[in-house]
């Protein structure tokens, strides 16, 4: 492994942890699609709106931070000239936004019972 070059600290990323799976609304790739909107309340509670669902979560400081690694080099197998595979630490993750409560559907119009 090696540090991703340059003076200065590593980039700090944030992890968003969701239960279950995320699927694009229309058929298609996840890449390029909008996931949703992230808000924080005044008290610092993260709120995620995905489609017509709302999820409440919490900010968690990770006991064991994560390191994000990127594989270097294009060769799929080690070769005589490149016997050692190298990974570069791209970022550190010390915080996660954990969403583990059930998503609640946002109902915008409740018809009155007659």
């Amino acid at each position: 492994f090696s540090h991703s070059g340059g003076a200065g600290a590593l980039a700090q990323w944030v992890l968003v942890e969701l239960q279950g799976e995320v699927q694009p609304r229309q058929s298609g790739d996840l890449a390029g699609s909008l996931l949703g909107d992230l808000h924080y309340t005044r008290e610092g509670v993260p709120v995620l709106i995905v489609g017509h669902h709302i999820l409440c979560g919490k900010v968690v400081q990770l006991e064991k931070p994560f390191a994000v690694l990127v594989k270097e080099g294009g060769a799929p197998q080690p070769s005589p000239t490149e016997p050692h595979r190298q990974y570069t630490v791209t970022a550190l993750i010390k915080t996660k936004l954990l969403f583990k409560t059930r998503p609640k559907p946002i109902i915008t119009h409740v018809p009155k019972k007659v």
Partner: protein
Amino acid sequence: SLVIRGEKDEHAVLCSKDKTYDMKIADTSNMLLFVPGCKTPEELNGDLESCNIIHSQIAGFSKNYWELRRCRPKLKKLRKLLMEDPYEGPDNQKDQTSTFSKYTTEDLLSLIQASEEEILHQLQVIDACKIEGYWRILDFDYEMKLLNHVTQLIDSESWPLSKVPLCACLEELGSLEPREMIQHILLSYGRKYVDDAGEVFFEMREDKICRAIARMLLQNAVKFNLSEFEEVWQQSVPEGMTTRLDQLQGLALVDKSSRPETIFLLKVEDLPEDNQERFNSLFGIREKWTEVDITPYIQ
């Protein structure tokens, strides 16, 4: 920087300069999304004025990750590799012709699942030495030959065992053995120190020397009459040293059930590594063990 070490048939470990970690993959049923530049509530607090939308990209996601757990360095292999070709001395023809099974520091770094510092420390513990760039363990008979040169010299010069001069040893013995070997044997069996005048001396290690001599005596027979052995052993060690049975832990075993009592060689490093196999081996040698007897072999 960090290194992952392991051969195809081993579980991978991650090594820093001085520590070793087991690598385990952890699966989570949750989805983990990585968001570069995502701000936490604390980071946004100062920005109450601006309510702009920040467009953030999710860099990727994963359902599993590698977890690291600090572990003991896997060093048993080190001795095993070096024992493939023990060094028998400069006169030995075999060494000049054979090109097999010799390991440099680089070789060991890629074969042993431990950090560099842990490997270098273990090399010191097992009294390995570097000969022509390769790490070697001395053949026991050659080691004893070297030790004998030194102890005989100590005796003939009447040096105190705690103050053996390096220079004089090199001068007197340099014609018999390579100087590096003489220095190596002094380092292995003595504690080096420098006196006020800047001269190098060795305080000879009584326990280690007595133990080596015991091994030399015991390896020539299946077993010995205990009292006879104790007599010969005491006579064989340098004058001023006292032999004690507790110096032989992990090396020899006393059979108290036989009449007369006997002693035989049982080296802990010859036993199987795997726990179950080791127990099987020990209980194959003897049906019942006392805690005192078995402890050196299961540590």
